Protein backbone atom coordinates (compact mmCIF):
# COMPACT_ATOMS: atom_id res chain seq x y z
CA UNK A 1 0.00 0.00 0.00
CA UNK A 2 1.58 3.23 -1.08
CA UNK A 3 0.56 6.33 0.78
CA UNK A 4 0.71 9.92 -0.36
CA UNK A 5 3.95 10.37 1.57
CA UNK A 6 5.63 7.47 -0.23
CA UNK A 7 4.67 8.88 -3.60
CA UNK A 8 5.94 12.35 -2.72
CA UNK A 9 9.23 11.01 -1.37
CA UNK A 10 9.93 8.80 -4.36
CA UNK A 11 12.64 9.88 -6.76
CA UNK A 12 12.15 9.81 -10.48
CA UNK A 13 15.19 7.62 -11.12
CA UNK A 14 15.38 4.25 -9.44
CA UNK A 15 19.16 3.87 -9.46
CA UNK A 16 22.25 5.83 -10.32
CA UNK A 17 22.60 3.82 -13.53
CA UNK A 18 19.26 5.01 -14.89
CA UNK A 19 20.12 8.52 -13.70
CA UNK A 20 23.49 8.60 -15.46
CA UNK A 21 22.35 6.91 -18.65
CA UNK A 22 19.50 9.37 -19.11
CA UNK A 23 22.03 12.16 -19.66
CA UNK A 24 23.17 13.13 -23.14
CA UNK A 25 26.56 13.98 -21.62
CA UNK A 26 27.12 10.34 -20.71
CA UNK A 27 26.62 9.10 -24.25
CA UNK A 28 28.75 11.84 -25.78
CA UNK A 29 31.51 10.96 -23.33
CA UNK A 30 31.25 7.27 -24.29
CA UNK A 31 31.47 8.29 -27.97
CA UNK A 32 34.61 10.34 -27.30
CA UNK A 33 36.23 7.48 -25.37
CA UNK A 34 35.36 4.98 -28.10
CA UNK A 35 36.78 7.32 -30.75
CA UNK A 36 40.01 7.61 -28.76
CA UNK A 37 40.25 3.83 -28.35
CA UNK A 38 39.59 3.22 -32.03
CA UNK A 39 42.23 5.77 -33.02
CA UNK A 40 44.81 4.26 -30.67
CA UNK A 41 44.32 0.91 -32.38
CA UNK A 42 44.01 2.16 -35.97
CA UNK A 43 46.96 4.56 -35.94
CA UNK A 44 50.40 4.53 -34.38
CA UNK A 45 50.51 8.29 -33.99
CA UNK A 46 47.36 9.02 -31.92
CA UNK A 47 48.43 7.70 -28.54
CA UNK A 48 51.83 9.40 -28.66
CA UNK A 49 52.61 11.99 -26.03
CA UNK A 50 53.19 14.69 -28.63
CA UNK A 51 49.82 14.18 -30.31
CA UNK A 52 47.84 13.92 -27.08
CA UNK A 53 49.52 17.14 -25.92
CA UNK A 54 48.36 18.88 -29.10
CA UNK A 55 44.84 17.51 -28.87
CA UNK A 56 44.61 18.60 -25.24
CA UNK A 57 45.76 22.12 -26.02
CA UNK A 58 43.64 22.56 -29.14
CA UNK A 59 40.43 21.46 -27.53
CA UNK A 60 41.09 23.62 -24.48
CA UNK A 61 40.50 26.83 -26.46
CA UNK A 62 37.20 25.64 -27.91
CA UNK A 63 36.25 24.17 -24.54
CA UNK A 64 36.85 27.43 -22.66
CA UNK A 65 34.62 29.42 -25.01
CA UNK A 66 32.07 26.59 -25.18
CA UNK A 67 31.55 26.94 -21.42
CA UNK A 68 30.65 30.61 -21.92
CA UNK A 69 28.51 29.70 -24.92
CA UNK A 70 26.66 27.13 -22.82
CA UNK A 71 25.60 29.82 -20.35
CA UNK A 72 24.19 31.90 -23.20
CA UNK A 73 22.46 28.96 -24.90
CA UNK A 74 21.04 27.67 -21.60
CA UNK A 75 19.51 31.12 -21.04
CA UNK A 76 17.76 30.84 -24.40
CA UNK A 77 20.13 33.10 -26.35
CA UNK A 78 23.00 32.68 -28.78
CA UNK A 79 26.33 34.47 -29.07
CA UNK A 80 27.77 34.58 -32.59
CA UNK A 81 30.36 37.20 -31.71
CA UNK A 82 32.78 34.96 -29.76
CA UNK A 83 35.19 34.41 -32.67
CA UNK A 84 35.52 38.15 -33.15
CA UNK A 85 35.85 38.73 -29.42
CA UNK A 86 38.77 36.28 -29.46
CA UNK A 87 40.63 38.33 -32.06
CA UNK A 88 39.77 41.64 -30.41
CA UNK A 89 41.12 40.52 -27.04
CA UNK A 90 44.22 38.95 -28.64
CA UNK A 91 44.79 42.16 -30.59
CA UNK A 92 44.37 44.39 -27.55
CA UNK A 93 46.91 42.41 -25.54
CA UNK A 94 49.41 42.12 -28.40
CA UNK A 95 49.20 45.77 -29.49
CA UNK A 96 49.52 47.11 -25.94
CA UNK A 97 52.33 44.69 -25.06
CA UNK A 98 54.16 45.54 -28.28
CA UNK A 99 53.91 49.15 -27.15
CA UNK A 100 55.76 48.22 -23.94
CA UNK A 101 52.91 47.57 -21.51
CA UNK A 102 53.57 44.82 -18.95
CA UNK A 103 51.55 41.61 -19.16
CA UNK A 104 49.84 42.17 -15.82
CA UNK A 105 48.32 45.40 -17.16
CA UNK A 106 47.66 44.31 -20.73
CA UNK A 107 45.89 41.11 -19.66
CA UNK A 108 43.05 42.79 -17.71
CA UNK A 109 42.81 45.38 -20.48
CA UNK A 110 42.24 42.61 -23.05
CA UNK A 111 39.59 41.03 -20.83
CA UNK A 112 37.96 44.44 -20.40
CA UNK A 113 37.76 44.89 -24.17
CA UNK A 114 36.11 41.48 -24.44
CA UNK A 115 33.75 42.26 -21.57
CA UNK A 116 32.66 45.47 -23.27
CA UNK A 117 31.61 43.49 -26.34
CA UNK A 118 29.62 41.15 -24.08
CA UNK A 119 27.99 43.97 -22.15
CA UNK A 120 27.03 45.68 -25.41
CA UNK A 121 25.47 42.40 -26.59
CA UNK A 122 23.67 41.98 -23.29
CA UNK A 123 22.33 45.54 -23.13
CA UNK A 124 21.02 45.42 -26.69
CA UNK A 125 19.37 42.05 -26.09
CA UNK A 126 17.98 42.74 -22.62
CA UNK A 127 17.09 46.43 -22.62
CA UNK A 128 16.45 47.11 -26.31
CA UNK A 129 14.72 43.74 -26.69
CA UNK A 130 16.55 42.88 -29.91
CA UNK A 131 16.97 39.23 -30.96
CA UNK A 132 20.35 37.84 -29.81
CA UNK A 133 21.03 36.40 -33.26
CA UNK A 134 20.91 39.83 -34.89
CA UNK A 135 22.76 41.69 -32.13
CA UNK A 136 25.66 39.26 -31.95
CA UNK A 137 25.83 39.03 -35.73
CA UNK A 138 26.38 42.78 -35.65
CA UNK A 139 29.10 42.62 -33.00
CA UNK A 140 30.67 39.69 -34.87
CA UNK A 141 31.34 42.10 -37.70
CA UNK A 142 32.12 45.12 -35.54
CA UNK A 143 34.59 43.52 -33.12
CA UNK A 144 36.72 41.98 -35.87
CA UNK A 145 36.77 45.26 -37.73
CA UNK A 146 37.88 46.98 -34.52
CA UNK A 147 40.73 44.48 -34.21
CA UNK A 148 41.78 45.33 -37.77
CA UNK A 149 41.73 49.05 -37.00
CA UNK A 150 43.79 48.47 -33.84
CA UNK A 151 46.51 46.53 -35.60
CA UNK A 152 46.28 48.22 -38.99
CA UNK A 153 45.66 44.64 -40.20
CA UNK A 154 49.30 43.70 -39.60
CA UNK A 155 50.59 40.54 -38.01
CA UNK A 156 51.98 41.15 -34.54
CA UNK A 157 54.69 38.78 -33.32
CA UNK A 158 56.70 40.96 -30.95
CA UNK A 159 55.04 41.26 -27.55
CA UNK A 160 57.50 43.75 -25.99
CA UNK A 161 59.33 43.30 -22.67
CA UNK A 162 57.00 40.57 -21.35
CA UNK A 163 57.11 38.60 -24.61
CA UNK A 164 58.33 35.39 -22.99
CA UNK A 165 55.78 35.56 -20.21
CA UNK A 166 52.85 35.68 -22.67
CA UNK A 167 54.34 32.79 -24.67
CA UNK A 168 54.73 30.83 -21.43
CA UNK A 169 51.17 31.54 -20.27
CA UNK A 170 49.54 30.50 -23.53
CA UNK A 171 51.96 27.99 -25.01
CA UNK A 172 53.86 26.60 -22.05
CA UNK A 173 53.15 23.58 -19.90
CA UNK A 174 53.56 22.55 -16.30
CA UNK A 175 53.97 18.90 -15.27
CA UNK A 176 53.54 17.95 -18.93
CA UNK A 177 50.08 19.47 -19.18
CA UNK A 178 49.58 22.57 -21.36
CA UNK A 179 48.49 25.68 -19.50
CA UNK A 180 45.23 26.25 -21.42
CA UNK A 181 44.09 22.88 -20.10
CA UNK A 182 44.55 24.07 -16.51
CA UNK A 183 42.46 27.13 -17.32
CA UNK A 184 39.80 24.94 -18.90
CA UNK A 185 39.73 22.57 -15.93
CA UNK A 186 39.44 25.42 -13.42
CA UNK A 187 36.74 27.16 -15.45
CA UNK A 188 34.78 23.93 -15.92
CA UNK A 189 34.91 23.21 -12.20
CA UNK A 190 33.88 26.71 -11.15
CA UNK A 191 31.10 27.00 -13.72
CA UNK A 192 29.74 23.52 -12.92
CA UNK A 193 29.40 24.59 -9.28
CA UNK A 194 27.93 27.95 -10.28
CA UNK A 195 25.35 26.30 -12.56
CA UNK A 196 24.20 23.86 -9.94
CA UNK A 197 24.60 25.63 -6.63
CA UNK A 198 24.08 29.38 -7.07
CA UNK A 199 21.05 31.55 -7.62
CA UNK A 200 22.71 32.91 -10.74
CA UNK A 201 22.86 29.42 -12.22
CA UNK A 202 19.33 28.56 -11.20
CA UNK A 203 17.91 31.82 -12.55
CA UNK A 204 19.86 31.37 -15.77
CA UNK A 205 18.09 28.06 -16.41
CA UNK A 206 14.77 29.60 -15.38
CA UNK A 207 15.16 32.38 -17.96
CA UNK A 208 16.00 29.86 -20.66
CA UNK A 209 13.14 27.65 -19.62
CA UNK A 210 10.37 30.25 -19.31
CA UNK A 211 11.44 33.86 -19.52
CA UNK A 212 7.98 35.14 -18.68
CA UNK A 213 7.87 33.08 -15.48
CA UNK A 214 11.29 34.41 -14.55
CA UNK A 215 10.04 37.99 -14.95
CA UNK A 216 6.84 37.31 -13.00
CA UNK A 217 8.70 35.75 -10.06
CA UNK A 218 10.85 38.84 -9.78
CA UNK A 219 14.14 37.52 -11.16
CA UNK A 220 16.14 40.51 -12.50
CA UNK A 221 16.05 39.11 -16.02
CA UNK A 222 17.64 42.11 -17.75
CA UNK A 223 20.62 42.34 -15.41
CA UNK A 224 21.00 38.57 -15.62
CA UNK A 225 21.17 38.72 -19.41
CA UNK A 226 23.85 41.40 -19.40
CA UNK A 227 25.93 39.28 -17.03
CA UNK A 228 25.35 36.14 -19.11
CA UNK A 229 26.62 37.75 -22.32
CA UNK A 230 29.43 39.24 -20.25
CA UNK A 231 30.52 35.78 -19.10
CA UNK A 232 30.43 34.46 -22.65
CA UNK A 233 32.58 37.34 -23.91
CA UNK A 234 34.99 36.96 -20.99
CA UNK A 235 35.63 33.31 -21.82
CA UNK A 236 36.27 34.33 -25.43
CA UNK A 237 38.62 37.07 -24.25
CA UNK A 238 40.49 34.63 -22.03
CA UNK A 239 40.84 32.18 -24.92
CA UNK A 240 42.08 35.07 -27.12
CA UNK A 241 44.90 35.89 -24.72
CA UNK A 242 45.92 32.23 -24.40
CA UNK A 243 45.81 31.77 -28.18
CA UNK A 244 48.04 34.81 -28.69
CA UNK A 245 50.62 33.22 -26.39
CA UNK A 246 50.25 29.80 -27.98
CA UNK A 247 50.62 31.00 -31.57
CA UNK A 248 53.35 33.54 -30.77
CA UNK A 249 51.81 35.88 -33.29
CA UNK A 250 48.40 37.43 -33.87
CA UNK A 251 46.71 38.11 -37.19
CA UNK A 252 43.25 39.52 -37.77
CA UNK A 253 41.86 36.20 -39.00
CA UNK A 254 42.37 34.57 -35.61
CA UNK A 255 39.23 32.85 -34.39
CA UNK A 256 37.42 33.23 -37.71
CA UNK A 257 34.49 30.84 -37.92
CA UNK A 258 35.22 29.65 -34.40
CA UNK A 259 31.68 30.45 -33.24
CA UNK A 260 30.31 27.48 -35.16
CA UNK A 261 32.72 24.99 -33.60
CA UNK A 262 31.99 26.44 -30.18
CA UNK A 263 28.21 26.30 -30.64
CA UNK A 264 28.57 22.72 -31.91
CA UNK A 265 30.63 21.78 -28.84
CA UNK A 266 28.03 23.29 -26.51
CA UNK A 267 25.11 21.64 -28.30
CA UNK A 268 26.81 18.24 -28.47
CA UNK A 269 27.49 18.58 -24.76
CA UNK A 270 23.80 18.92 -24.01
CA UNK A 271 23.08 22.66 -24.22
CA UNK A 272 19.55 23.00 -25.56
CA UNK A 273 19.23 25.63 -28.30
CA UNK A 274 15.66 26.21 -27.11
CA UNK A 275 17.06 27.19 -23.71
CA UNK A 276 16.78 25.85 -20.18
CA UNK A 277 19.39 23.09 -20.39
CA UNK A 278 23.15 22.97 -20.46
CA UNK A 279 26.13 22.23 -18.27
CA UNK A 280 29.76 23.22 -18.22
CA UNK A 281 31.12 19.68 -18.20
CA UNK A 282 29.08 18.90 -21.30
CA UNK A 283 30.69 21.80 -23.16
CA UNK A 284 34.13 20.38 -22.34
CA UNK A 285 33.22 16.86 -23.46
CA UNK A 286 31.61 18.27 -26.62
CA UNK A 287 34.76 20.22 -27.43
CA UNK A 288 36.85 17.11 -26.79
CA UNK A 289 34.76 15.00 -29.15
CA UNK A 290 35.06 17.58 -31.93
CA UNK A 291 38.83 17.85 -31.51
CA UNK A 292 39.27 14.07 -31.46
CA UNK A 293 37.28 13.79 -34.70
CA UNK A 294 39.33 16.58 -36.27
CA UNK A 295 42.53 14.95 -35.14
CA UNK A 296 41.44 11.57 -36.46
CA UNK A 297 40.73 13.04 -39.90
CA UNK A 298 44.31 14.27 -40.05
CA UNK A 299 45.83 11.05 -38.71
CA UNK A 300 43.75 8.84 -40.99
CA UNK A 301 44.85 10.91 -43.97
CA UNK A 302 41.38 12.26 -44.74
CA UNK A 303 41.25 15.84 -46.06
CA UNK A 304 40.56 18.35 -43.26
CA UNK A 305 38.08 19.98 -45.61
CA UNK A 306 35.67 17.33 -44.36
CA UNK A 307 35.75 18.84 -40.88
CA UNK A 308 32.98 21.36 -41.55
CA UNK A 309 30.83 18.50 -42.81
CA UNK A 310 31.26 16.67 -39.50
CA UNK A 311 30.56 19.72 -37.36
CA UNK A 312 27.48 20.62 -39.38
CA UNK A 313 26.19 17.06 -39.15
CA UNK A 314 26.87 17.02 -35.43
CA UNK A 315 24.81 20.14 -34.76
CA UNK A 316 21.87 18.79 -36.75
CA UNK A 317 22.11 15.31 -35.19
CA UNK A 318 22.38 16.73 -31.66
CA UNK A 319 19.29 18.89 -32.19
CA UNK A 320 17.44 15.98 -33.83
CA UNK A 321 18.35 13.77 -30.87
CA UNK A 322 16.85 16.39 -28.60
CA UNK A 323 13.65 16.61 -30.64
CA UNK A 324 13.20 12.84 -30.43
CA UNK A 325 13.73 12.90 -26.66
CA UNK A 326 11.15 15.64 -26.17
CA UNK A 327 8.73 13.99 -28.56
CA UNK A 328 8.76 10.86 -26.42
CA UNK A 329 8.12 12.59 -23.12
Amino acid at each position, binding site marked *: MTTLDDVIA*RSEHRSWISRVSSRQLFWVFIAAVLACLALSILTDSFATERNLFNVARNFAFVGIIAIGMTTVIASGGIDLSVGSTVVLSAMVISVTMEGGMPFLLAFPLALLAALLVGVLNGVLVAYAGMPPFVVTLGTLSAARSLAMVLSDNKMIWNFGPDHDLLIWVGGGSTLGIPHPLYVLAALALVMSLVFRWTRWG*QHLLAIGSNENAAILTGIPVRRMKVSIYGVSALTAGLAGVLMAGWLGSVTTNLGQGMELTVIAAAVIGGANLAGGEGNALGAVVGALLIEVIRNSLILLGISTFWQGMFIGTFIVVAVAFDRVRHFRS
Partner: protein
Amino acid sequence: MGDNGAGKTTLVKIIAGNFPPSTGEIRVDDQPVTFHNPRDAQRHGIEVVYQDLALCDNLSAASNVFLGRETMRSLGPLRYIDYAKMNRVAAELFRQLKSETRPRDLVRRMSGGQRQAVAIARTLLSEPKIVIMDEPTAAISVRQVAEVLDVIRRLRDHGISVILISHRMPDVFGVSDKIAVLRRGELVASKRADQSSPEEVTGLITGAIEAA
Protein backbone atom coordinates in the same frame (compact mmCIF):
# COMPACT_ATOMS: atom_id res chain seq x y z
CA MET B 1 -15.23 38.85 -13.22
CA GLY B 2 -15.21 40.55 -16.56
CA ASP B 3 -15.14 39.97 -20.29
CA ASN B 4 -11.94 39.50 -22.30
CA GLY B 5 -10.02 42.76 -22.32
CA ALA B 6 -11.88 44.16 -19.31
CA GLY B 7 -8.54 44.59 -17.51
CA LYS B 8 -8.62 41.66 -15.09
CA THR B 9 -5.11 40.40 -15.75
CA THR B 10 -3.72 43.93 -15.87
CA LEU B 11 -5.23 44.61 -12.44
CA VAL B 12 -3.68 41.38 -11.15
CA LYS B 13 -0.29 42.42 -12.45
CA ILE B 14 -0.59 45.83 -10.79
CA ILE B 15 -1.49 44.25 -7.45
CA ALA B 16 1.35 41.74 -7.87
CA GLY B 17 3.88 44.50 -8.48
CA ASN B 18 4.57 43.73 -12.14
CA PHE B 19 3.22 47.08 -13.39
CA PRO B 20 3.04 50.41 -11.52
CA PRO B 21 -0.50 51.86 -11.31
CA SER B 22 -0.97 55.05 -13.38
CA THR B 23 -3.32 56.49 -10.73
CA GLY B 24 -4.70 55.45 -7.36
CA GLU B 25 -3.17 53.64 -4.45
CA ILE B 26 -2.98 50.14 -3.05
CA ARG B 27 -3.71 49.52 0.61
CA VAL B 28 -2.99 46.32 2.53
CA ASP B 29 -4.62 46.18 5.98
CA ASP B 30 -5.37 49.90 5.54
CA GLN B 31 -1.67 50.70 5.09
CA PRO B 32 -0.84 52.38 1.76
CA VAL B 33 1.89 50.42 -0.06
CA THR B 34 3.87 50.85 -3.26
CA PHE B 35 5.32 47.89 -5.12
CA HIS B 36 8.27 48.24 -7.48
CA ASN B 37 8.54 44.55 -8.30
CA PRO B 38 6.88 41.22 -7.46
CA ARG B 39 9.24 40.72 -4.52
CA ASP B 40 7.81 43.86 -2.82
CA ALA B 41 4.29 42.51 -3.16
CA GLN B 42 5.35 39.14 -1.77
CA ARG B 43 6.84 40.87 1.26
CA HIS B 44 3.40 42.34 1.93
CA GLY B 45 1.83 38.91 1.72
CA ILE B 46 0.47 39.03 -1.83
CA GLU B 47 0.97 35.97 -4.01
CA VAL B 48 -0.26 35.19 -7.50
CA VAL B 49 -1.07 32.02 -9.42
CA TYR B 50 -0.75 33.17 -13.02
CA GLN B 51 -3.01 32.04 -15.81
CA ASP B 52 -0.21 30.10 -17.56
CA LEU B 53 1.08 29.08 -14.08
CA ALA B 54 4.50 30.66 -14.86
CA LEU B 55 6.42 27.41 -14.37
CA CYS B 56 9.85 26.53 -15.72
CA ASP B 57 9.59 23.12 -17.37
CA ASN B 58 13.27 22.30 -17.04
CA LEU B 59 13.44 22.88 -13.31
CA SER B 60 12.28 20.56 -10.55
CA ALA B 61 9.00 21.13 -8.74
CA ALA B 62 10.84 22.29 -5.62
CA SER B 63 12.98 24.73 -7.62
CA ASN B 64 9.83 26.14 -9.17
CA VAL B 65 8.18 26.59 -5.78
CA PHE B 66 11.23 28.51 -4.57
CA LEU B 67 11.99 30.33 -7.83
CA GLY B 68 13.36 33.80 -7.13
CA ARG B 69 13.70 33.17 -3.35
CA GLU B 70 15.79 30.03 -3.07
CA THR B 71 16.89 29.07 0.41
CA MET B 72 20.63 29.50 0.75
CA ARG B 73 23.26 28.00 3.03
CA SER B 74 26.59 29.53 3.82
CA LEU B 75 29.93 27.79 3.66
CA GLY B 76 32.39 30.39 4.88
CA PRO B 77 32.07 33.29 2.45
CA LEU B 78 30.31 31.11 -0.14
CA ARG B 79 26.55 30.87 -0.38
CA TYR B 80 24.91 27.96 -2.09
CA ILE B 81 21.37 26.72 -2.69
CA ASP B 82 20.02 24.40 -0.01
CA TYR B 83 18.28 21.82 -2.22
CA ALA B 84 17.62 19.43 0.67
CA LYS B 85 15.62 22.04 2.56
CA MET B 86 13.78 23.18 -0.57
CA ASN B 87 12.75 19.59 -1.32
CA ARG B 88 11.65 19.05 2.27
CA VAL B 89 9.53 22.23 2.44
CA ALA B 90 8.04 21.63 -1.02
CA ALA B 91 7.12 18.06 -0.04
CA GLU B 92 5.39 19.40 3.05
CA LEU B 93 3.39 21.90 0.94
CA PHE B 94 2.33 19.20 -1.54
CA ARG B 95 1.20 17.07 1.41
CA GLN B 96 -0.91 20.01 2.65
CA LEU B 97 -2.45 20.35 -0.80
CA LYS B 98 -3.00 16.56 -0.90
CA SER B 99 -1.26 16.38 -4.26
CA GLU B 100 0.86 13.47 -5.47
CA THR B 101 3.67 15.69 -6.65
CA ARG B 102 7.32 14.73 -6.25
CA PRO B 103 9.48 17.76 -5.41
CA ARG B 104 12.54 16.43 -7.21
CA ASP B 105 10.84 15.69 -10.54
CA LEU B 106 11.02 18.03 -13.47
CA VAL B 107 7.83 19.98 -14.07
CA ARG B 108 8.03 19.08 -17.78
CA ARG B 109 6.83 15.56 -17.05
CA MET B 110 3.91 16.53 -14.81
CA SER B 111 0.16 16.40 -15.34
CA GLY B 112 -2.05 19.49 -15.42
CA GLY B 113 -3.18 18.94 -11.82
CA GLN B 114 0.37 18.52 -10.56
CA ARG B 115 1.43 21.69 -12.35
CA GLN B 116 -1.44 23.53 -10.64
CA ALA B 117 -0.25 22.15 -7.32
CA VAL B 118 3.28 23.44 -7.95
CA ALA B 119 1.98 26.91 -8.82
CA ILE B 120 -0.28 26.99 -5.76
CA ALA B 121 2.42 25.61 -3.45
CA ARG B 122 4.60 28.51 -4.58
CA THR B 123 2.08 30.98 -3.17
CA LEU B 124 1.91 29.21 0.20
CA LEU B 125 5.62 29.42 0.79
CA SER B 126 5.58 32.67 2.73
CA GLU B 127 2.26 32.40 4.60
CA PRO B 128 0.48 34.91 2.39
CA LYS B 129 -2.43 37.17 3.31
CA ILE B 130 -3.83 37.33 -0.20
CA VAL B 131 -3.59 34.78 -3.00
CA ILE B 132 -4.66 35.95 -6.43
CA MET B 133 -5.62 33.23 -8.92
CA ASP B 134 -5.85 34.27 -12.54
CA GLU B 135 -8.21 31.90 -14.38
CA PRO B 136 -7.03 28.79 -12.51
CA THR B 137 -9.86 26.68 -13.93
CA ALA B 138 -9.67 27.77 -17.56
CA ALA B 139 -7.59 24.95 -19.03
CA ILE B 140 -8.06 21.89 -16.82
CA SER B 141 -10.40 18.93 -16.64
CA VAL B 142 -13.66 18.90 -14.70
CA ARG B 143 -12.22 16.71 -11.94
CA GLN B 144 -9.28 19.07 -11.56
CA VAL B 145 -11.60 22.08 -11.39
CA ALA B 146 -13.26 20.51 -8.35
CA GLU B 147 -9.81 19.95 -6.81
CA VAL B 148 -8.78 23.56 -7.37
CA LEU B 149 -12.03 24.82 -5.85
CA ASP B 150 -11.33 22.56 -2.87
CA VAL B 151 -7.89 24.10 -2.53
CA ILE B 152 -9.44 27.58 -2.61
CA ARG B 153 -11.78 26.62 0.24
CA ARG B 154 -8.84 25.17 2.17
CA LEU B 155 -6.92 28.43 1.75
CA ARG B 156 -9.95 30.35 3.01
CA ASP B 157 -10.15 28.09 6.06
CA HIS B 158 -6.53 29.00 6.79
CA GLY B 159 -7.54 32.67 6.86
CA ILE B 160 -6.06 33.53 3.48
CA SER B 161 -8.05 35.86 1.23
CA VAL B 162 -8.35 34.49 -2.30
CA ILE B 163 -9.02 36.76 -5.24
CA LEU B 164 -10.35 34.50 -7.98
CA ILE B 165 -10.30 35.81 -11.52
CA SER B 166 -12.62 33.70 -13.62
CA HIS B 167 -14.97 33.46 -16.55
CA ARG B 168 -16.82 30.49 -15.18
CA MET B 169 -19.97 31.54 -13.37
CA PRO B 170 -20.47 28.28 -11.39
CA ASP B 171 -16.92 28.41 -10.01
CA VAL B 172 -17.29 31.99 -8.91
CA PHE B 173 -20.62 31.47 -7.19
CA GLY B 174 -19.35 28.17 -5.78
CA VAL B 175 -16.57 29.67 -3.71
CA SER B 176 -16.85 33.47 -3.45
CA ASP B 177 -18.11 35.66 -0.65
CA LYS B 178 -17.94 38.82 -2.71
CA ILE B 179 -18.07 39.48 -6.42
CA ALA B 180 -16.57 42.44 -8.32
CA VAL B 181 -17.19 43.05 -12.00
CA LEU B 182 -14.88 44.91 -14.35
CA ARG B 183 -16.01 46.33 -17.68
CA ARG B 184 -13.58 48.08 -20.04
CA GLY B 185 -11.18 48.89 -17.26
CA GLU B 186 -13.81 50.17 -14.82
CA LEU B 187 -15.25 48.67 -11.67
CA VAL B 188 -19.00 48.44 -12.27
CA ALA B 189 -20.02 46.32 -9.29
CA SER B 190 -18.67 45.02 -6.01
CA LYS B 191 -21.19 43.23 -3.81
CA ARG B 192 -21.81 40.13 -1.71
CA ALA B 193 -22.28 36.95 -3.71
CA ASP B 194 -25.46 35.99 -1.85
CA GLN B 195 -27.06 39.33 -2.80
CA SER B 196 -26.30 38.87 -6.48
CA SER B 197 -27.16 36.29 -9.11
CA PRO B 198 -25.51 34.82 -12.21
CA GLU B 199 -28.04 36.73 -14.34
CA GLU B 200 -27.13 40.07 -12.76
CA VAL B 201 -23.39 39.42 -13.13
CA THR B 202 -23.83 38.43 -16.77
CA GLY B 203 -25.71 41.67 -17.36
CA LEU B 204 -22.96 43.65 -15.64
CA ILE B 205 -20.25 41.95 -17.72
CA THR B 206 -21.96 42.61 -21.04
CA GLY B 207 -23.14 46.09 -20.12
CA ALA B 208 -26.84 45.25 -20.20
CA ILE B 209 -26.90 46.42 -16.58
CA GLU B 210 -24.98 49.69 -16.20
CA ALA B 211 -23.81 49.25 -12.60
CA ALA B 212 -24.86 47.63 -9.33
